[in-house]
């Protein structure tokens, strides 16, 4: 019995004895510097356990913030400056060379309905919120360098604070408008063979010949899809940022911000061109979105197939017994 107890005691003690033979100084040593360097190179965080009920706080080091900083201070700044200044420069050059695109046959004086009240109201809801979103967004990236020195810190903070509030809240009419816009116009924005012809002819911008187009030409379809898909992606990533940690962790938010920033800059560039051609760039274009009534000759030149379609529709819609004005 005594021998058995001794054997059991020895068995239990064996691991302890074995451990004691390892010198205390040679115990497992994780090098903080090595681990931090590894994580910086690999990405990812150094994560542990924490007693406060917030697992995010258990991230000891999250070195990928450095990559985000480089993105924010270099990449986004460069992409934004090149996209916005580049497009403005190109538009200026285009205006200098081509001038305002006139209605070749001159205004007919007769008009036809291009966009109804709902379409126009929705367009301007999206457009006006986009302008504020654009300005407040650009301010976050460039304001510190361009506006802060002029306004001074207090005024600039007030401006940026209101800009942030506007940016967050106007995202809702913007996103709602995108959905409506998609439903209203997707039917006429499906790409087809005509678009290739239109693009080959340079959209009538480069040559003098006006290529055929239905309700929307390839350029307008481009603007539509940039707005719907680009705007959709920008809105989605924006909501990820507006509700921090509801959807994703810190790495996800950094990615959301990067996608949001780059897509927004590219969209701004595209929309600046859209604003140009819809206003000073082309005679008669603004009417489509202001009164909704476009000049007949403008419509013939830019959307010949749509005019034919509308006329055919009108012919079948009117009373067959009706007489043309002045026929009596």
């Amino acid at each position, binding site marked *: 019995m005594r021998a058995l107890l001794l054997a059991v005691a020895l068995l239990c003690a064996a691991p302890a004895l074995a451990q004691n033979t390892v010198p205390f*100084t040679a*115990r*497992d*040593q*994780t*090098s*903080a*510097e*090595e681990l*931090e*360097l590894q994580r*910086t190179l690999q990405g990812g965080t*150094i994560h*542990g*356990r*924490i*007693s*406060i009920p*917030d697992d*995010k*706080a*258990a*991230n*000891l*080091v*999250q*070195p990928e*913030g*450095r990559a*985000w*900083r480089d993105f*924010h*201070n270099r990449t986004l700044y460069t992409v934004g400056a090149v996209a916005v200044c580049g497009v403005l420069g190109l538009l200026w050059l285009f205006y200098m060379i081509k001038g305002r695109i006139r209605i070749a046959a001159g205004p007919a004086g007769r008009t036809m309905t291009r966009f109804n009240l709902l379409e126009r109201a929705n367009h301007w809801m999206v457009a006006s919120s986009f302008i504020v979103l654009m300005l407040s967004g650009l*301010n*976050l*990236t460039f*304001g*510190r360098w361009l506006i*802060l020195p002029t306004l001074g*810190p*207090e005024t*600039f*903070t007030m401006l*940026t*604070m209101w800009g*942030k*509030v506007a*940016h*967050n809240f106007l995202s809702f009419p913007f996103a709602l408008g995108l959905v409506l816009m998609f439903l209203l116009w997707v039917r006429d924005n499906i790409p087809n063979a005509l678009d290739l012809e239109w693009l080959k002819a340079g959209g009538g911008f480069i040559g003098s010949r006006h290529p055929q187009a239905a309700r929307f030409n390839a350029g307008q379809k481009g603007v539509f899809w940039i707005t719907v898909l680009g705007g959709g992606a920008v809105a989605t990533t924006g909501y990820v*940022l*507006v*509700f*921090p*940690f*509801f959807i994703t962790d*810190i790495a996800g*938010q*950094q990615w959301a*911000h990067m996608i949001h920033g780059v897509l927004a800059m590219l969209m701004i560039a595209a929309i600046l061109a859209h604003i140009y051609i819809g206003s000073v760039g082309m005679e008669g274009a603004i009417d489509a979105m202001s009164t909704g009534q476009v000049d007949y000759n403008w419509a013939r030149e830019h959307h010949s197939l749509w005019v034919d379609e509308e006329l055919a529709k009108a012919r079948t819609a009117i009373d067959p017994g009706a007489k043309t004005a002045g026929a009596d």
Partner: protein
Amino acid sequence: MARMKFLCDADRCIECNACVTACKNEHEVPWGINRRRVVTLNDGKPGERSISMACMHCTDAPCAAVCPVNCFYTTADAIVLHDKDLCIGCGYCFYACPFGAPQYPRVGNFGGRGKMDKCTYCAGGPQADNTAAEYIQYGANRIAEGKLPLCAEMCSTKALLAGDGEIIASIYRERVSKRGYGGGAWGWRTAYREGVQA
């Protein structure tokens, strides 16, 4: 002038959270804000280490670099502070910070997280030193009184060291050479781009 830094000797930290409590109490930090926290790595496994972490007052601080309203400034002692009257609570400093130091008084919802709060190295903020206004916004200003941060002063094992970078690094190196082991200072490579290996 000194170059103030924090150094946590992970071989000494016993995860007692006294630094966290001291910080909360000294500055009357509200619920949900943790200017300092203790993280345990490899919990319950060989090589378990606890590290007390707060704002490291980085060299070339990422928060200051990305702030859209430029509300950060660095004191003569290289302490990174910010002006809450200028902060818009956008959260950019939180995306950039490698230590998760920036805290926000409100959770979630809509960019309405309130003005950012973080460890001030017990150095207050841009308000006049040790005024009521400074205390409400930033907490106590021990540096102005010639004292070091309370978290480090309270530390029972002297794991958390605060003070001039060269002095605390030399204390740590001396410890490592005497006891014969030390895993380096957590956060130093990231914050100061240097190590303290003996």
